[in-house]
């Protein structure tokens, strides 16, 4: 069986021109991921967990190695693919959930959530209906649906963010601490949605401050803490 993702000897470093030096974020990471699998990334602060997610999403450019992704159009190395292909894959096959909402000024919460569906070709009314369904599922109050999310509280913004990021089922989902700033019921709604997506075959890689939230979903773990350094023992911080 072909893996959804086959990461081979991936390394990433940052060149800081103003300091005149390079900083290694992680090096020589290899793993595979199959459909419906959930991989948890562990490691201390600064071990490179978020950096790895962003490198897989191509927000960061890989220094060396391959990220072979099995797309509906065939296999492609995300580390080297043309920008236009990455844009296309981000719209249709690879999702990224962060803890930050990217809201454009003067765009309503429901329009923002419906946007991925509209870009995928769904009719405006249908997309809006589905957007409202997910806003409600994540516990965003009805009065807020037509309002601008830039004015919302942190937790409300995060709910809008999740509804938008998870509205379209993807082949690969990257999760960067999506439970941060969520209340208990929204966290439960998130875990339910992730479980459904997982069951339908979405492969996931996640970083969680509290992995306990998603314990029932985790199939495998990778620890990114560089060898020779003590592993973090505590369960409550900085995983």
């Amino acid at each position, binding site marked *: 069986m072909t893996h959804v993702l086959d990461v081979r000897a991936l390394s990433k470093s*940052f*060149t*800081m*021109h*103003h300091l005149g030096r390079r900083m290694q974020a992680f090096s020589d990471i290899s793993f595979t991921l199959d459909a419906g699998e959930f991989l948890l990334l562990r490691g201390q602060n600064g071990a490179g967990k978020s950096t790895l997610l*962003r490198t897989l999403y*191509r*927000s*960061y*450019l*890989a*220094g*060396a190695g391959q990220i072979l992704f099995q*797309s509906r*159009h*065939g296999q*492609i*190395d995300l*580390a*080297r*693919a*043309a*920008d*236009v*292909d*990455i*844009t*296309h*894959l981000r719209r249709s096959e690879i999702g990224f959930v962060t803890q930050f909402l990217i809201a*454009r*000024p*003067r*765009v309503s919460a429901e329009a923002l959530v419906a*946007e991925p569906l*509209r*870009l995928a070709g769904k009719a405006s009314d249908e997309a809006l209906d589905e957007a409202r369904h997910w806003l409600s599922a994540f516990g965003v109050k009805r009065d807020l649906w037509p309002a601008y999310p830039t004015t919302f509280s942190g937790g409300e913004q995060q709910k809008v963010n999740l509804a938008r990021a998870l509205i379209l089922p993807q082949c690969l989902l990257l999760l960067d601490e999506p439970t941060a700033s969520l209340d208990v019921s929204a966290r439960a709604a998130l875990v339910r949605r992730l479980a459904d997506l997982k069951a339908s075959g979405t492969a996931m890689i996640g970083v969680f401050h509290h992995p306990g939230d998603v314990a029932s979903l985790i199939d495998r773990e990778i620890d990114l803490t560089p060898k020779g350094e003590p592993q973090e023992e505590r369960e409550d911080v900085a995983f």
Partner: protein
Amino acid sequence: MTLSLDAPRLVTTQPLLTARDVSKSYGAVQALRNVSATAYPGEVLGIVGESGSGKSTFLRCLNLEETPDTGSYTLDLPDVQGNLFDLDRFGRRMLCAKRIGIVYQNPHLGLLMTHSSSGNVAERLLIAGERSFATLRAKARGALEASEFPLERMDAPPIELSGGMQQRVQLAKAIALEPALLLLDEPTTGLDVSVQALVLDTLKRLQAERRITMVIVSHDLGVIRTMSDRVMVMRRGEVVEAGLADQVFQDPQHAYTQQLVHAKL
């Protein structure tokens, strides 16, 4: 690792716009040095750089107002062939009227300030051969409406309008004939932030609804980041870096881009 324009491809769309090795000098000043760019159908390409980096000159080349010393420029459209820099004056005028729209920072460059706003939009249609008064009027009204211009002011001359409204007239003129390519040169510079947000929102909506390919030039990194799928960074007439918008802003490779991104408030 640098990614070339010719990276292995998965999706088979052709770029709408391909410019290769465009160079232009004004006397001893080299304004553009081997600038290459592509834009795919429906994509927004942002160009950033300090004043004098050549970004506006490049945009004027794409609008066929300037002829570079060397280089090629093609648009993948039916009935449009060859290097567009080789077109004569008439060919350029027709192509620009029908397929390329532009919004300038300075409305005085794009509009006849004392003619009516609707007349400014209709001029585009006249160049393209439309002669029926009723059709001219209806199409001008449609374009102004799509640009979210208040229709009760459609016969007012731009000189009587606010800066934001003038930009909307320019936009209506640019989209009057449903262009394949929309060029935007600092479209919101000089507007206050709330008007800027409205104009950007109109542009985003048009882009989503009509899948117009856009090239937007600005020194405002926030505008470029909000609007663009891909970003090209220019300095002293050269492209120093190009990539996906989030990548260029989050993981800038070139020393100049790092400086630029880190200088943003």
